[in-house]
């Protein structure tokens, strides 16, 4: 049996107000317009934030190094540092010029920080709306599924272009307004070429997340995007010091585009073209997968956790049960990084020992510690990056905690004979314990790597524990804000402090801000625990932030309205 041709008739509506062009582009006139409207503030905010950093770095460098001789000395010093000290910023290319320095110290880290935004935005663009339940209504309108996906993705591409455009304008203005030496001023085409690279670098991990989101859901896509971003970044940053990474570094998009820094004077369009091609393929794959597959929230692929009664004993165990799989994954991910680094120490030390000037410089920088040990190497190569990743993990756990209230589960829980204060203390404590689980897995991995080198694993285990305490302190701040004000702020505040304090410390150190100001950054109170340099007062402060945050959270939850 087959159906006959189209039947029935369409009832024409009455007076229709067609959406204006403005509403279609920036408003409720289309999926594209609504997506732009929803994210316009954060887009401009992110652009302005980094524009400010570029201006500050550029103006200070121009003022402090106002002669060619000073610039050359500065550049020689930085370029003499082995890769391990240059760490996450990559090779110092053309840093004697204003553009080169801004590129190295300012813009090279943008793909990491804003790459996270890209992952969150594109993993959630379709899969997030599907999980919330609003996508069914949108998909039942006369809008083809493919077009719906294209409009959502296109909106993000435009938003990202605005953010990068603002950074580009600031870069162009800074390099031209503060140009004091020959070579400082950067032409507009070089800035545009640089921003094209920056745009693709930010977009790439998000495109990877988009491509897998129809298969693994929003959570899985976030994980895949994060692995693509951080694994590529770390492999590229430490390829010269870690032999395992060197073997695979060509697969890292951070590495194969290293030669394209137009504002520093080097161009590599073929590499950028390769990145553009892969990014485009991933975006198309994500759109096609969305258009062709069932609109279902993927059920499988989650990290398996034994179904035991422990997870339903009360608010604490439920909270921990919710976050336990993620805690293991975060620990394993970060732990693998630490394990590889720890297992590479001997090779690194052997290489470094061949350069007496560097050994001498290290001794000057760290007179009270044996930096050429496994622990010392981990302090430099692992701990500083671990601070950022632990901040992300803390924000993820706090976000999960906040969802109990924002998704209205809390109202059901509080209908049981459980006081608000008790719920808040127990559920918030589960966040801290989840971070402890991550830390324990991480410590086991790193200590194992240290033991493989024949060194004492205890100091590194202690060092990792302090990293965990730092994560708990960030979570404490987020929980306090979530409890006192509203849950929707908890994760963004945790993330902002985690990443913001890193940037604050980075910029402040470059610009030689006074110590009392720099000390506002929490990670400056961690000491150098991997090499036994422990800041006891700092640790007390971090502990107080963690515990105090939970208590403040509980007070806040007890007194304010629930469900805001």
């Amino acid at each position, binding site marked *: *049996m087959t*159906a*006959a*041709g*189209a*039947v*029935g*008739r*369409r*009832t*024409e*509506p*009455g*007076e*229709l*107000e*067609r*959406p204006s062009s403005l*509403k279609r582009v920036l408003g*409720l*006139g*289309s*999926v594209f317009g*609504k997506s732009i409207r*929803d994210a316009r503030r954060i887009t401009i905010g992110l652009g302005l934030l980094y524009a400010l950093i570029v201006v500050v770095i550029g103006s200070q460098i121009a003022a402090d190094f106002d002669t060619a001789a000073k610039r050359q000395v500065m550049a020689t010093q930085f370029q003499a540092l082995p890769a391990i000290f240059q760490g996450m910023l990559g090779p110092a290319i053309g840093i004697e010029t204003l553009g080169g320095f801004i590129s190295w110290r300012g813009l090279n880290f943008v793909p990491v920080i804003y790459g996270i935004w890209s992952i969150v935005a594109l993993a959630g663009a379709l899969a997030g709306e599907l999980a*919330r*339940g*609003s996508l*069914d*209504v*949108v*998909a*039942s*309108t*006369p*809008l*083809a*599924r493919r077009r719906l996906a294209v409009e959502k993705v296109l909106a993000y591409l435009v938003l990202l272009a605005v953010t990068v455009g603002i950074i580009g304008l600031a870069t162009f203005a800074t390099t031209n307004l503060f140009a004091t030496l020959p070579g400082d001023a950067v032409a507009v085409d070089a800035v545009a070429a640089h921003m094209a690279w920056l745009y693709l670098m930010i977009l790439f991990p998000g495109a990877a997340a988009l491509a897998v989101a129809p298969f693994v859901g929003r959570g899985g896509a976030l994980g895949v995007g994060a692995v693509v971003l951080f694994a590529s970044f770390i492999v590229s940053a430490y390829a010269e010091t870690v032999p395992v990474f060197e073997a695979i570094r060509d697969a890292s998009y951070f590495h194969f585009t290293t030669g394209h820094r137009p504002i520093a004077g080097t161009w590599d369009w073929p590499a950028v073209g390769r990145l553009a091609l892969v990014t485009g393929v991933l975006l198309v794959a994500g759109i096609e997968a969305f258009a062709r597959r*069932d*609109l*279902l929230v993927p059920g499988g692929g989650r990290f398996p956790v034994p179904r035991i009664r422990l997870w339903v004993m009360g608010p604490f165990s439920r909270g921990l049960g919710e976050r336990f799989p993620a805690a293991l994954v975060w620990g394993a991910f970060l732990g693998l990084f630490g394990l590889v680094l720890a297992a590479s120490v001997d090779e690194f030390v052997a290489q470094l020992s061949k350069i007496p000037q560097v050994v001498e410089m290290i001794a000057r920088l760290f007179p009270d510690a044996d930096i050429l040990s496994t622990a010392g190497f981990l302090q430099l190569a692992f701990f500083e990056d671990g601070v950022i990743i632990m901040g992300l993990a803390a924000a993820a756990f706090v976000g999960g905690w906040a969802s109990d209230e924002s998704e209205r589960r809390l109202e059901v829980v509080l209908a049981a004979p459980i006081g608000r204060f008790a719920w808040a203390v127990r559920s918030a404590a589960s966040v801290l314990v989840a971070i402890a689980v991550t830390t324990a897995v991480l410590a086991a991995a790193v200590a194992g790597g240290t033991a493989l080198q024949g060194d004492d694993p205890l100091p590194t285990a202690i060092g990792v524990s302090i990293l965990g305490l730092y994560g708990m302190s960030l979570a404490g701040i987020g929980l306090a804000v979530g409890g006192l004000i509203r849950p929707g702020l908890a994760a963004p505040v945790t993330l902002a402090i985690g990443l913001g304090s890193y940037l604050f410390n980075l910029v402040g150190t470059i610009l030689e801000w006074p110590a009392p100001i720099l000390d506002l950054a929490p990670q400056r109170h961690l000491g150098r625990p991997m090499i036994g340099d422990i800041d006891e007062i700092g640790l007390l402060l971090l502990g107080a932030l963690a515990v105090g945050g939970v208590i403040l959270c509980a007070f806040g939850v007890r007194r304010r309205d629930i469900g805001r």
Partner: protein
Amino acid sequence: MPPIIQTERLTKRYGIHRGITEVDLEVREGEVFGFLGPNGAGKTTTIRILLDLIRPTSGMAWVFGIASSSDPVAIHRRIGYLPGEFTLYDRLTGTETIEYFANLRGGFDRAYSGRLVERLGLDPSRRFREYSKGNKQKVGLVCALQHRPDLLILDEPTAGLDPLVQQTFNEILFEAKAEGRSAFISSHIISEVERTCDRVAIIRDGQIVRLDTVEALREMAAHEVELRFGEPVDPAPFEAIAGVSNLVVEGRTLRMLVTGPVAPVVRLAAAGDLVDFVSREPSLEEVFLAEYGTASGSPVR
């Protein structure tokens, strides 16, 4: 007249889990069709296939004569859909939400939407996240109704609505039917289906077990019959009538269930000293519960 909705051996499996199995349906133009079944029976799966939100494992579905997977946009242009479980955009107000979905359909009929908002008693100035469950449902209903679609596909449309608003919704539905439009309503609120629907399908464990008019379904179910006589009566002749069951004798009163025509019972009773006769028609709810309670349903073709 060709059907508005037609499915043929429509089957959907979710891995090892059952979805629906060989569902055959026809919804006629101008008809309000009820789709009854308990939670998890396959109602929403069927609807989502009709809308091409998911695709069948086997079988076919046509809406307006168009295969659901071949041109879903053409189908969507003429339908209004309310999902059973949904959430919209927390930060948009009711007005903004309604306008957004109108815009996705080509334009906003402000006057008609306004009338719907007024009739349903919705305050459209509040943000979606501030609405109660019932008010969220009203927003969803306005979004589904505001473009006067040829076919309404409504999954649990009155969930969360108070009785007054339910009545208003029924009025709107009757008006749509009077204008020749069709509706496919999934529900497990049987009284609502009984009031509003012309025909009903009952789905059970992913299969259609009954499909007919409300009246016919009632006819198929047992009537409760009570006969009071002036003198004691022998129940045996009544027991011998086809369709009579559960016969109980209480003094001069006989109570029984009669499936099928009641006339043979009436004729036999009239031959005796019949004082009073009471026959109660079964409700759709009893039909439904009988289907699920006796577990005797077999799929219909």
